[in-house]
């Protein structure tokens, strides 16, 4: 075998793949994800289009679902259980649409694993695009569900506070957290097929452990720890307070939420980068 000189980098912008010179996986995956951002966009579009093709109401389902949910829960929680919460529809919907964003994007990351590994075993795609697109679809749905929320504000004569400007920050923090959880789930689901089912049950329980349909003040003192240990408790508050209470979250709450989200995001990312490929080939 001749030993022709091999350039370390492709000359003149020619892409170069060298299996011996892959560098840090964490950085490599980040670069690859960036260069495949068009694919993330296409996958989000595909998901949304496919979901609403051949349906009469189309995209209105996304807006109708939180409304129907809200009506049902308002009936149960404020009329039957006589909970004392001012404007329950707004209280519930602020928590519920944020929760739906988190739950939808993480479960979709766990569900996509099999299909996307089939694809990634045949052509080169950075696997993180699948988690990113799950988040992207959830984000589109979150933005769409702002419409029914506004409708409820108007219908119940609830004020539209100036503190809404904080919402992008709150959504950003939830996105980091959801992505971190999504990376873990995607990686586990590459190894074990029953992760998805287990997570769907878990996420249902988690929903009721988070003050969305009820007020945190009704949680008995001995269960307070379960509240404090729940990242979604803080994240729901950072989203709910600007809409429902008309105030910005306290700096302590923001700091805690941000620290948690960043920690989970980076842990998930690093774990994903090191294990996702390996797990996919363990058939």
């Amino acid at each position, binding site marked *: 075998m001749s030993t022709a000189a091999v350039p370390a980098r492709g000359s003149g912008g020619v892409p170069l793949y060298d*299996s011996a010179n892959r560098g840090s996986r964490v950085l490599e995956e980040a670069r690859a994800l960036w260069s495949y951002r068009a694919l993330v966009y296409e996958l989000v579009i*595909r998901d949304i289009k*496919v979901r609403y093709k051949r349906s009469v109401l189309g995209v209105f389902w996304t807006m109708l679902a939180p409304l129907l949910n809200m009506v049902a829960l308002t009936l149960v929680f404020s009329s039957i259980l006589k909970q004392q919460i001012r404007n329950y529809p707004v209280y519930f919907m602020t928590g519920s649409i944020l929760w739906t964003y988190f739950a939808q994007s993480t479960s979709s990351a766990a569900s996509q694993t099999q299909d996307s590994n089939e694809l990634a075993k045949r052509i080169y795609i950075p696997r993180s695009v699948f988690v990113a697109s799950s988040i992207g679809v959830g984000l589109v749905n979150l933005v769409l569900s702002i419409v029914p929320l506004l409708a409820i504000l108007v219908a119940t004569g609830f004020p539209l506070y100036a503190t809404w400007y904080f919402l992008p920050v709150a959504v950003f923090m939830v996105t980091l957290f959801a992505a971190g959880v999504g990376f873990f789930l995607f990686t586990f689901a590459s190894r074990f097929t029953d992760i998805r089912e287990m997570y769907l049950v878990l996420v249902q329980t988690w929903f009721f452990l988070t003050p969305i349909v009820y007020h945190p003040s009704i949680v008995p003192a001995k269960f307070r720890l379960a509240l404090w240990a729940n990242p979604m408790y803080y994240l729901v508050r950072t989203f709910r307070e600007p809409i429902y209470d008309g105030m910005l979250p306290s700096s302590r709450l923001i700091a805690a939420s941000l620290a948690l989200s960043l920690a989970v995001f980076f842990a998930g990312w690093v774990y994903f980068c090191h294990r996702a490929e390996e797990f996919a080939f363990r058939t």
Partner: protein
Amino acid sequence: MTPAIRLEEVSVRYKVPRERIGSLKEYAIRRVRRRMSFDEFEALDDISIEILPGETVGIVGRNGAGKSTLLKLIARVVPPTAGRVIVVGRIAPLLELGLGLHGELTGRENVLLQGALLGFSRAKMKRRLDRIVEWAELEGFIDAPIRTYSTGMTARLAFSVATDVDPDILLVDEALSVGDERFQMKCLDRMESFRRAGKTVILVSHALPQVRDNCRRAIWFHEGRVVRDGDSATVTNAYHEWSLQPGDPEATEPVVPDAAPLPRF
């Protein structure tokens, strides 16, 4: 000249569990009983190959000889277990036609999706759309969902996208076995123009005449090793003769382990 593809003592081993353990529940049970056993399957065994820019190389061999693993290695889908793989240039894999297509989406939407799967931006794909549709002869159908397409139409669309993106290296895996004769002719035509443009083409095929006619060089794989590497007529003939009476392929005729780089065209 810098090779377009260079494999240095590359091996690919797959770890195959004796029993498929797909769920966490089963895994936990096995783990407790300490019964986990793996078989190692050597898909490629210590392969060294150099392919120069502009070469057209046919890969022949029985099923399970390592042909597809070789393409996946070059397409950076499978990492080598040992050795080193270096690829210079943009790769267009044509591994399975129709992979990643979605039946509910229209032809046009699928072209954009396929382009993105190959790593291209939306703007770039939109500029190429007309030419892709024209080559695939799907002008009248491009806004219909592709679940309404025939197999041949789907194949034309996928081939058109994969070859329009202007790769430096084209990997073709049995892709030409679908579609009618006219489509196959068009595909071969396009590969020919690739070759004239100095691009590297790697073709995996069981159709030996196709390899002989379209490739200058051929490599015969058997059980993860290179048996013969050289002029495509010689290699395909040797493979054909061996196929009629399979025995130890190494025993058939003198092996050419390190074929001298073939003259370029």
